[in-house]
């Protein structure tokens, strides 16, 4: 026990003497949370739409009024009058405007005659986000125009009524679970993987191996210390990230307990995985080379930045075994939904089984000699 604690003591003293590890493990996730959270979370505003009115009738004026209403209210776009369709299309192509609306000749007459009236929307679909947002906005605008002036007394159309279980979740809040998981991964990668191999290369392990410490004490000591570091990184990022994203759940003690359990499970899972990968590695370049690859392979398919169900099958297969997936799911269940223990029980089970399982495989592979 003394020897196991000596290894933990050594690792923790080094960790607290060198705060760079803590700072580095939290820097990327925090920047990512801040930048991506704001970049993807907001509505599009101030897009420029060219309007070519070839009708100039009373129904075209109604369209202009609807555009003006959008411009002064949610401000998704502002309109610029164009005289000819060709110039408008060319300006969409060259990026001078984001889209063009063409109100064709005879539009008003067709509306009155119920003769399939159409308005054209020319979009630059190389930018899916912008074109999608403008299409959505124009569709709701057209739906509003289609509403009868005097509503039917008996509604025959099927309407969809959406019931949202939770308050509006901004993208930053959605991203927080991934950022916490990423901070723990970086802490394990640097504090566990890289420092472990660096210590091996510097001969520190040679010093351990000439003492009577057993293989199990050494493996457990190194992993326990690694798990503590990752837990600290996870707790710090949960607190800072929740405050940044405006999540008040961290002030609920029971939710904090579940979050702590998830952070602990994730730390053990990540440490076990990293130890298994590094147990026979001697070259300090290997963990550095693996850092980016593993990050991409494990973080992105986990559902941290977009839902797993949107991925192709092969990525979904990675997500099934990826401990990131369960950590992200569990953290989202508590942070965004306050789902209680039932919502995270399978995530916890997987994380602990994965962590102890990988450690169980790695321990016999660890060499007690050089």
């Amino acid at each position, binding site marked *: 026990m003394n*020897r196991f604690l*000596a290894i933990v*003591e050594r690792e923790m003293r*080094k960790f607290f003497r060198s705060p760079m590890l803590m700072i580095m493990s939290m820097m990327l996730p925090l920047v990512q949370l801040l930048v991506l959270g704001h970049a993807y979370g907001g509505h599009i505003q101030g897009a420029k739409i060219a309007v070519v009115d070839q009708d100039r009738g009373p129904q075209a004026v109604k369209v202009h009024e609807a555009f003006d209403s959008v411009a002064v209210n949610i401000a998704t776009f502002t309109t610029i009058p164009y005289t000819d369709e060709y110039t408008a299309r060319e300006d969409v192509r060259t990026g001078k405007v984001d889209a063009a609306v063409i109100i064709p000749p005879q539009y008003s007459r067709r509306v009155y005659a119920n003769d399939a009236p159409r308005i054209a929307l020319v979009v630059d679909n190389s930018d899916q986000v912008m074109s999608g947002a403008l299409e959505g906005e124009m569709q709701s605008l057209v739906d509003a125009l289609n509403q009868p002036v005097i509503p039917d007394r008996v509604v025959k159309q099927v309407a969809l009524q959406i019931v949202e279980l939770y308050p509006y979740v901004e993208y930053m809040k959605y991203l927080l679970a991934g950022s916490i998981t990423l901070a723990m991964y970086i802490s394990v990668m640097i504090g566990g993987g890289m420092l472990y191999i660096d210590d091996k290369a*510097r001969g*520190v392990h040679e010093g351990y191996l*000439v*003492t*009577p410490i057993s293989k199990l004490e050494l493996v457990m000591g190194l992993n326990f210390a690694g798990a503590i570091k990752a837990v600290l990184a996870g707790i710090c990022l949960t607190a800072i990230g929740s405050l940044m994203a405006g999540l008040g759940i961290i002030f609920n003690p029971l939710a904090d307990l579940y979050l702590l359990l998830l952070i602990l499970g994730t730390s053990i899972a990540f440490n076990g995985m990293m130890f298994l990968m590094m147990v026979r590695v*001697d070259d300090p370049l290997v963990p550095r080379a693996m850092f980016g690859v593993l990050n991409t392979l494990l973080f992105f398919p986990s559902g941290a930045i977009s839902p797993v169900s949107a991925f192709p099958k092969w990525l979904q297969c990675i997500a099934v075994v990826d401990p990131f997936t369960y950590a992200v799911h569990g953290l989202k269940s508590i942070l965004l939904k306050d789902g209680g223990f039932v919502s995270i029980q399978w995530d916890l089970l997987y994380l602990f089984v994965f962590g102890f399982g990988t450690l169980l495989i790695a321990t016999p592979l660890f060499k007690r000699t050089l």
Partner: protein
Amino acid sequence: MDTAQNQSKTPRAATPAIKTAAIKVEKIVKRYGDFEAVKGVDFEVADGEIFGLLGPNGAGKSTLIRMMTTLIPITAGRALIGGRDVSKEPNAVRNLIGVIPQALTSDIDLTVEENLSIYAKLYSVPRAIREKNIAEVLEAVDLTKWRGAQTKTLSGGMRRRLEIARGLVHNPQIFFLDEPTTGLDPVSRIAVWEMLNNLKKTRNLTMLLTTHYMEEADRLCDRIAIVDHGTLVALDTPVGLKQSVPGSDVVEVRFNREDDQWMERLRALASVTDVQSQSAGVYRVLTSNGSQTTTQLVEMASRLGEQLTSLSVQNTSLDDVFVHYTGRQLRDEQVKHVFSMPRKGEM
């Protein structure tokens, strides 16, 4: 011409019979695939003795020390440390020994005391004794006033002393030092030598050290084993080894011009046992009678109308012994070979 190649490679027998062997190595072998790094080495180290392992790069010194300290498995043969078999009772051996590796491996972020405390805990030194031991070893290596200093603030010599203190913190009986003064300046090196001599006297430690420095081996070691190509080529006291080299004196002579005939003429002189060419016109002449050879050299130069630009007479040094037994060829090729083995260790 290579002296070693002309001489028998049979190791000289270890001097007096050892009463109690602190270290006993019997036909120890280490193989990496087809490559045999250590080829059946035998020796014993007596209690309280300082024993040196001398050899060129890649000779097998570090492999030997790593096998004795349980760091790498022994392929064949056996090593007994304090009467315990390294292969069968590795933990018992680990409790008996202190090991100072070649590299400086103390944690630079920790203080001197923290480094020692962690190692004391790794050896399960009880809390009551730990403090006392740390104070004693710090005193022994003259680092008491640096107790609270971070290791990164220490000089190279002080860090090496800390490594020595770390190896002593659990009161070992046998101390292994792998090139303990490599990379140190001459002043720090001498300080480490004095410290090791004091430790031997005050703690009655048995020490086994590997070194490249002949002066270090000469000043510290009671006996020296010369290892080359994984075998023991000589084992004796420093004095015994010097006497084993043909020619007890070395005359270094410089002629004013280079001549292909010099080697042959010098070899033909009475009492000369060997001649080594140093550089253009400079020769080291090994002789059993220094004064006679000096006179002959002066007479020969005068007779041939040549000029001697310098001439000096020295006793045989361990350098001569080393060159005599190991030859003079560089070992880079072998070192590369060793580094390509599964385990990178230096030999």
